[in-house]
């Protein structure tokens, strides 16, 4: 499941839908997290105010990001941290691998970090000959399974207890058990040993405070504490959008993030790290490196509509609330960032062309917007991306058409036509739709034609499964009726009934 691509979203999703274990696990977990989030949010009277406040802080950060970043870097370096800038994934990987090599690192412990997943840091470190181990339990599980996380905060959400037990038996050679405490303690024993031997700790960052140069990392297992304090070197990676201006802003975000993510009032641990240790008796690493990653973020920042996606604090609440994610899980999206926010961010990371299915993978129900702690209007962003996709199609079609004219060859024609066939059909359909809907008489005529055409397929007042030729001619009809009956066009439309007497019938008692 870990090597699915975004381009094959449709077939990934179909495969997920027939995986009953996956769907069972998702159903339990997403509904549990959803309920906990709601209870936690209701526990605070000023929840809505906090959301508004958080968004205002984020908007300010994004508007003045250059200034806040400079302030953060200057304060962090004053306290002994070394800051590195990475334009993209390969630069970030290079920086980390070079640092590790300079320090003679062999064993790396990592705490959970989506940004390191985004740049595939583990692959880069392993290619450089280093041993890397994930120390968050969920991340450890999927690392053992050779998979990618399927949720922003619950990486192994797609796995059942039974599957994890089997995995541990196969990979760690333990006696088969489905006792969660036993499984956890097995993992703990393995990880403790790794911590003791580690010479580099790598973490992500939840928030970075410009005013003090502090980074904050939230967790529940204590593994972040160990990752960032035991090894002599700590490298923290963060997207450039993680900045908060003032220390006091943490108050707002510490109320929102744990509640939105896991439904906790607060995570078990909050590690606030400001620079390196000052005196020999202090705890913590001797070196702290902070890698600031752009990787498409400044491009998002430049656009007034997509900019708001950078306000995301990676709580995962929109995934749990999304009816599509609830059914297919995260792997089907073929992206590090799945679900509604993933459908918005992924096109910015890998290009809209490759990710063109994702903005359509939503019923636009708005549940994501409702739960978002920073009020990102995800449906609006999905609609914006859909409009961009259809614009792009138009450009490509025109470019394809020109190529055809110039080449004049049949082969080019087929190639260009083939790759855009479906989209051309859709565009044509919507042009036709607009042409019909702007002309009431044509609209009425088309209704009459539809009524004639449907005669052969209406049985007992409904249209059952439509297959064969007809489904090929009208794919939406086949797609709809495969599992759902369809209402036929009425014998007499509302406007026909209006003209036939409804207009003058003012007797409120009339029976319809």
């Amino acid at each position, binding site marked *: 499941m870990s090597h699915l691509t975004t381009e094959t979203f*449709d077939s990934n999703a179909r495969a997920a839908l027939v995986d009953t274990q996956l769907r069972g696990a998702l159903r339990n977990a997403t509904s549990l997290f959803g309920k906990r989030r709601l209870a936690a949010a209701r526990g605070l009277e000023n929840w809505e105010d906090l959301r508004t406040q958080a968004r205002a802080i984020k908007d300010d950060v994004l508007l003045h990001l250059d200034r806040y970043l400079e302030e953060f870097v200057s304060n962090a370096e004053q306290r002994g941290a070394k800051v590195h800038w990475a334009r993209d994934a390969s630069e970030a990987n290079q920086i980390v691998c070079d640092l590790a090599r300079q320090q003679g690192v062999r064993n790396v412990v990592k705490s959970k970090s989506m940004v390191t997943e985004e740049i595939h840091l583990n692959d880069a470190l392993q290619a450089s000959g280093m041993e890397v181990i994930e120390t968050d339990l969920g991340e450890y599980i999927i690392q053992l399974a050779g998979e990618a996380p399927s949720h922003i905060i619950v990486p192994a959400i797609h796995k059942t207890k039974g599957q994890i037990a089997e995995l541990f038996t196969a990979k760690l050679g333990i006696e088969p058990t489905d006792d969660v405490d036993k499984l956890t303690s097995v993992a703990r024993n393995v990880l403790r040993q790794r911590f003791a031997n580690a010479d580099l700790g790598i973490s992500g960052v939840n928030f970075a405070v410009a005013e003090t140069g502090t980074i904050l990392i939230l967790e529940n297992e204590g593994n972040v504490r160990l990752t960032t304090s035991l090894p002599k070197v700590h490298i923290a990676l963060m997207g450039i959008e993680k900045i908060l201006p003032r220390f006091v802003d943490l108050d707002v975000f510490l109320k929102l993030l744990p509640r939105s993510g896991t439904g906790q009032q607060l995570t078990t641990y909050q590690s606030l790290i400001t620079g390196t240790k000052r005196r020999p008796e202090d705890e913590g690493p001797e070196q702290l490196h902070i890698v600031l990653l752009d990787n498409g973020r400044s491009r998002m920042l430049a656009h007034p509509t997509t900019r708001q996606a950078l306000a995301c604090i990676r709580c995962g609440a929109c995934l749990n609330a999304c009816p599509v994610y609830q059914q297919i899980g995260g792997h089907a999206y073929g992206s590090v960032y799945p679900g509604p926010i993933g459908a918005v961010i992924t096109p910015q990371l890998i290009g809209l062309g490759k990710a063109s299915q994702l903005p359509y993978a939503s019923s636009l129900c708005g549940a994501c917007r409702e739960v978002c702690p920073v009020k990102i209007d995800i449906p609006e962003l999905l*609609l914006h991306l859909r409009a961009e996709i259809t614009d792009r199609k138009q450009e490509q079609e025109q470019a394809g058409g020109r190529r055809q004219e110039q080449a004049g060859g049949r082969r080019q024609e087929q190639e260009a036509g083939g790759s855009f066939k479906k989209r051309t059909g859709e565009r044509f359909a*919507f042009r036709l739709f607009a042409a019909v809907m*702007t002309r009431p008489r044509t609209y009425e005529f088309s209704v009459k034609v539809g009524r004639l055409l449907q005669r052969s397929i209406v049985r007992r007042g409904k249209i059952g499964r439509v297959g064969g030729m007809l489904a090929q001619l009208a794919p939406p009809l086949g797609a709809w009726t495969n599992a759902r009956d369809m209402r036929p066009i009425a014998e007499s439309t509302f*406007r026909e009934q209006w003209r036939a007497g409804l207009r003058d019938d003012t007797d409120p008692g009339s029976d319809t």
Partner: protein
Amino acid sequence: MRVALFVTCLVDQMWPSVGVSTLEVLRRVGCTVEFDERQTCCGQPAFNTGYSAEARQLAERFIQMCEESEAEAIVSPSGSCTAMVHHYPALFDNAGDAQENHEWRRRARAVAERTFELSSFLVRVLKIDDVGARWPGRVTWHDACHALRDLNVHSEPRRLIGNVREAEFVELDNADSCCGFGGTFSVKYPEISVAILDQKIEAIEKAGVQAVVSGDASCLMQIGGRLSRKGSNVRAMHLAELLASR
């Protein structure tokens, strides 16, 4: 009150009884109802699929038509189409001439301000939550997403149903979760759409009702289509149909 009925293209063609029922309810509560036969579609299918130029074309047409009506309110038996009209001003944010867009936004806002979904028109505007309906049986309510989240319609339909004589109302589990329709989503990703739908169907079956009521014909076609395919006896019913019964 003088009211213009925006029946929606879906109801007009596929479910005219919803339009007839809406008309009857509005007349029963004392409205004078007009119906402009030039109306077609609000443009939502095009807009939601990414064809904003086509959507804008239909929006301009709808705005012009509404401006010619002197009705105090434009009422529709659809939360989704009403939400689309409320979304019109945003259609004029980008493409085209700035001055022209500014003017269109002003006109779009004026139309949006007097466009209402049926239940919120009855309860919020007319302050009526009992329309004298009678329907013997057990019913439940499905919150259509756009009515719920774009128009904040939640208590209005429940109050109206609560006052239907002989009807017993039960809350649906996860009444506010999507039915999986989502416009073209329902045919672009039919398997996902139906997987989402089946959770709704499960909740409806658990509720043990004679009818599942909602405020949007689109959700009801999705829910009703699956109920019918499964041979269920539960009826998918529009709020207008329930309120027109007596």
